[in-house]
């Protein structure tokens, strides 16, 4: 049967042949029409193992071929894909050799994305469902909307808008993420978050507090210009495989690659040197390295004098506390390895420190991230080609969703909710009445108070009411594109699910949340089928801050609808549909409605980018990336140089747009509006270039002076061609007037810029004029090695809450408990000390850490539903050292129980049933479990709890069922990389 693109169609079995492509030649059709031959061929075919072929001969799959250029949705590298579509069916997938990012290359996930378009035996959620009497029951969209909205409004009336927690998604494109951020605010809560919290929140905080922006400083491509790479907390070969194209290329040209990790990874197998250390002791490792650097005088003294504040204080402390011997005592790493890292990085500059979840998912991650920054500053590695902090983001759009999406503490572009000006700014951009908006909130105080985080929504449900910093506990949870098994303390999540009034899951693959909920509940949940990113258009921000525009490949399959359509329809039901598309004062073209699936209205993605993101996100320069410019880049990838990502020339044939000088994807900040044609900023803080050439400086975010020390850049440090040749503060109308540059604004710009700064002047005039004079709009300052507004002004080592080393806990204890952090009481010392007192390290002597597999992504429901991927990893497993296994009588491939200090509500420790993979990749003190699995619950297959037809092909134990308490002091990042466990034969 031929798959049609009919919007409302059901799951249609699709034959293998319906997806074949007729080439323009006549061979095939003519061939098939010859009846005798057709029969013969059919008879042969039916004997073959390829079974899906039978009725195929009758098909006539002729139809116009179209190519849609899209971007892989499985990680932040941003690999381009040409999708060949025929009759609305995605029939072929071709590599895009022209892409300067991936050069046609793909990993297992990228090479299999066409599976998203296959309806035969699809494991997607196909229609809205409702839990009724413990069974998942199909309902209509209208019924689901009616019941959900009625319930939400009822609970809102009883408990206020903050009784909702809205988990957004890093898999939404920028426009959807921005709309969802707005959606939460129009509902009236800051209780919204997404994967970035548990991905790189500590990176964003650490980097931002050090030098201004929280993003990857350079690009994957720029590693080709490096002389050394230190992977500390990244297994790029599995998590970002295509980035390894650039890494390996660099290494083959002489770049030294070091991988430091508790586990010998596939990345380590491609390194010059592997260094093992104990999980969670990154600060001692880094400061041991820094000690060696200082001791040998290898630091970049000139750079530190001119561009860095506070390194002398750090040096003093590091020299006292972190000799390589002491670092070795804590980390377990030999002194000579620490010295090797220091020497290699010092002798091979520029270089990167590269990290992902290995640094960020610790309860001391803010310190770890900043220690990395400090080492790079000491070496003078930041703000130059080939050097910096390349933080590899996880999801395809986790960078973009962090920048403009649903965050509990910021509006799009990191405008803090605590500052009233942020609200005036965005209400104006959204074309929403600010007074109306205030009334949507419980109070103006709640409007200014950062919401809860996704890492701890369960505590928002379970915590005693008088201990939380809002009126009501959470009573409703919406999971809008987010897996539940990526959050720690899974065993307690079940308790939260038992207690809440309403759960709504909006996702193409909502299965793990659905199964967990149905395991403990009879009713109270709805599942709404969302479209994938291949079923809508929109922009996506890769880890290197480049934006790429996805074309819609196919119509939403089954009954699924695009996220923007669901947002708009649900907003209408909840009474803020008009505000959602900015219709104040009868304005009809703020975000226009376009016809989506089934002829229904949905907000235009191009308008959302142009009239909201471009119009309002001045802080981080999402203002210059108009849809037209991005689309021109997508059509002309071949003009961009791979090493610099810059276009040497070229004109877009369709629009005549001149690409010359643009950096690929206009990496943010792309300051000013699109008209001034800022080329994007490929390397942050690089003063060697003019700002209109992609140059940049450290941000003047922390004032101009601290204790009598100048915080601005010293004399002689400024962007190339700058009219100010020393440090300067952020630009605003006053500075512009003082400099005598005010009259360079047009009259319209003047009207908009009066009383404004570079960050909220909606005309972009202040940015334009500043850059015209060679100045970076956000100032030219020093980076901070000391963050005086944080509990740890200089990064400290703090042992994990569940540490295998009680002696180290005594020496390096964690923080004191905090009464309220992101609206919730947060425990540190009490948990750690109790664990020592209970001698948890004796019962659970092994360190449990987790990480990625190349075949799967995130919570894994989507990728474990793809047969081409699922076939490659069919069982949940743990990695165990041969000695550890032998001591326990465990053989390779046998089932084992991994138990942790996590408690089951009914008593007993949480335990996971996984297969043992015996390998020297982990040390004898460590167990590794990949985190993508779900669908088993402590040995029990949860298949009966899944909506029929939506269970993923492969199910297994979620490691996060067993992970334990522990959060970062600044961002509430969860600890998933270091806890304790014991292993026994099953």
């Amino acid at each position, binding site marked *: 049967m031929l798959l049609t693109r009919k919007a409302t169609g059901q799951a249609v079995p699709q034959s293998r042949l319906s997806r074949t492509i007729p080439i323009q030649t006549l061979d095939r059709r003519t*061939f098939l029409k010859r009846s005798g031959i057709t029969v013969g061929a059919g008879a042969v075919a039916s004997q073959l193992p390829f079974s899906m072929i039978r009725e195929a001969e009758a098909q006539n799959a002729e139809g116009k*071929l179209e190519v849609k250029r899209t971007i892989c949705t499985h990680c932040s590298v941003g690999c381009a894909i040409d999708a060949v579509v025929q009759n609305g069916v995605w029939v072929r997938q*071709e590599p895009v050799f022209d892409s300067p990012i991936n*050069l046609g290359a793909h990993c297992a996930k990228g090479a299999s994305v066409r599976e998203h378009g296959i309806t035969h035996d699809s494991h997607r959620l196909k229609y809205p469902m409702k839990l009724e009497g413990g069974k998942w029951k199909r309902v209509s969209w209208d019924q689901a909307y009616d019941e959900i909205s009625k319930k939400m409004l009822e609970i809102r009336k009883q408990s206020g808008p903050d009784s909702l927690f809205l988990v957004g998604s890093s898999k939404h494109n920028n426009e959807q993420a921005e709309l969802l951020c707005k959606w939460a605010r129009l509902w009236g809560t800051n209780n919204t978050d997404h994967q970035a919290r548990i991905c790189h929140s500590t990176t964003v905080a650490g980097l931002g507090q050090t030098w201004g922006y929280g993003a990857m400083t350079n690009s994957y491509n720029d590693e080709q210009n490096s002389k050394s790479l230190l992977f500390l907390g990244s297994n790029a070969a599995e998590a970002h495989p295509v980035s390894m194209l650039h890494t390996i290329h660099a290494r083959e040209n002489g770049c030294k690659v070091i991988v430091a990790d508790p586990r010998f990874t596939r990345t380590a197998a491609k390194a010059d040197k592997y260094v093992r250390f104990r999980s969670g002791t990154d600060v001692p490792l880094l400061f041991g390295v820094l000690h060696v650097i200082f001791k040998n005088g290898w630091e970049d003294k000139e750079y530190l004098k001119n561009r860095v504040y506070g390194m002398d204080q750090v040096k003093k402390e590091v020299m006292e506390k972190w000799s390589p011997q002491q670092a070795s005592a804590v980390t377990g790493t030999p002194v000579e390895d620490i010295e090797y890292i220091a020497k290699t990085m010092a002798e091979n500059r520029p270089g990167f420190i590269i990290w992902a979840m290995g640094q960020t998912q610790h309860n001391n991650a803010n310190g770890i991230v900043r220690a990395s920054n400090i080492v790079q500053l000491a070496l003078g590695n930041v703000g130059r080609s080939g050097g910096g902090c390349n933080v590899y983001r996880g999801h395809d759009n986790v960078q973009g969703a962090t920048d403009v999406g649903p965050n509990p503490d910021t509006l799009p572009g990191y405008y803090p909710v605590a500052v009233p000006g942020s609200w005036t700014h965005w209400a104006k951009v959204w074309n929403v009445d600010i007074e109306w908006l205030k009334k949507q909130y419980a109070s103006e105080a709640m409007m200014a108070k950062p919401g809860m985080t996704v890492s701890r929504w369960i505590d928002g449900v379970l915590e005693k009411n008088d201990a939380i910093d809002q009126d009501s506990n959470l009573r409703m949870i919406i999971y809008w594109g987010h897996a539940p098994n990526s959050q720690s303390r899974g065993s307690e999540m079940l308790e939260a699910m038992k207690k809440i009034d309403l759960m709504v899951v909006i996702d193409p693959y909502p299965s793990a949340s659905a199964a967990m909920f149905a395991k403990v509940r009879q009713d109270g949940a709805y599942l709404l089928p969302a479209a994938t990113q291949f079923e809508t258009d929109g922009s996506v921000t890769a880890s290197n801050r480049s934006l790429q525009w996805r074309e819609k490949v196919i119509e939403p399959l089954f009954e699924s609808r695009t996220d923007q359509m669901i947002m708009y329809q649900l907003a209408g039901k909840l009474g803020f549909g008009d505000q959602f598309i900015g219709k104040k004062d009868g304005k009809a073209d703020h975000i226009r409605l376009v016809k989506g699936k089934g002829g229904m209205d949905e907000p235009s993605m191009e308008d959302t980018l142009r009239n909201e993101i471009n119009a309002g996100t001045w802080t981080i320069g999402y203002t210059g990336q108009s849809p037209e410019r991005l689309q021109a880049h997508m059509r002309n990838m071949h003009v961009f140089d791979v090493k610099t990502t810059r276009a040497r020339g070229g004109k877009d044939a369709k629009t005549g747009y001149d690409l010359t000088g643009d950096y690929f994807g206009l990496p943010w900040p792309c300051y000013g509006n699109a008209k001034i044609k800022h080329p994007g900023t490929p390397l942050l803080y690089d003063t060697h270039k003019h700002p209109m050439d992609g140059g940049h400086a450290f941000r003047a975010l922390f004032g101009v002076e601290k204790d009598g020390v100048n915080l601005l850049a010293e004399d002689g440090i400024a962007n190339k061609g700058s009219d100010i040749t020393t440090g300067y503060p952020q630009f605003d109308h006053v500075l512009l007037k003082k400099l005598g540059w005010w009259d360079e604004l047009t009259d319209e710009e003047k009207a908009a810029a009066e009383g404004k700064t570079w960050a909220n002047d909606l005309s972009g005039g202040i940015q334009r004029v500043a850059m015209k004079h060679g100045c970076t709009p956000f100032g030219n300052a020093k980076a901070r090695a000391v963050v005086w507004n944080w509990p740890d002004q200089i990064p400290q080592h703090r042992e994990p809450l569940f540490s295998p080393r009680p002696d180290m806990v005594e020496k390096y204890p964690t923080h004191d408990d905090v009464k309220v952090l992101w609206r919730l009481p947060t425990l540190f010392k009490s948990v750690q000390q109790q664990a020592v007192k209970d001698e948890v390290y004796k019962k659970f002597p092994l360190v449990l850490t987790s990480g990625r597999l190349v075949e799967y992504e995130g919570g894994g429901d989507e990728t474990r539903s793809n047969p081409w991927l699922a076939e490659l990893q069919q069982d949940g497993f743990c990695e165990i050292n041969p000695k550890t296994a032998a001591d326990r009588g465990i053989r390779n491939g046998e089932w084992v129980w991994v138990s942790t200090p996590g408690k089951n509500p009914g008593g007993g420790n949480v335990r996971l049933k996984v297969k043992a993979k015996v390998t020297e990749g982990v040390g004898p003190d460590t167990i590794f479990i990949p985190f993508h699995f779900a669908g088993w619950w402590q040995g029990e297959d949860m298949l009966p709890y899944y909506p029929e037809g939506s269970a993923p092909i492969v199910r297994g134990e979620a490691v996060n069922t067993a992970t334990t308490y522990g959060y970062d002091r600044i961002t509430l990042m969860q600890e998933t990389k270091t806890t304790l466990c014991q292993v026994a034969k099953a």
Partner: protein
Amino acid sequence: MSRLLAALVLAAFGLAACGEREQVIQPVSEKRYQGKRDSKPWDNDSPVAELRGGKWTKGNQASWEEQIKIRQLAQHEHKRIYQ
């Protein structure tokens, strides 16, 4: 078309294209292929642009090989990087 018909006829009578194949190396046995005759890639038209394939002169082996060798350089990232 005639090529196709020829192939079918050969297949139908089980004659195989033994005389046609250029089996350069047959050190182990002198056996010959008994199946249907296959056609040659260059005897096809170049595919439509949407398939992102190559362009050559139909029936001209050299032109097909030339374009495939150029395409092969997409596997050589040095060419794209230092172009």
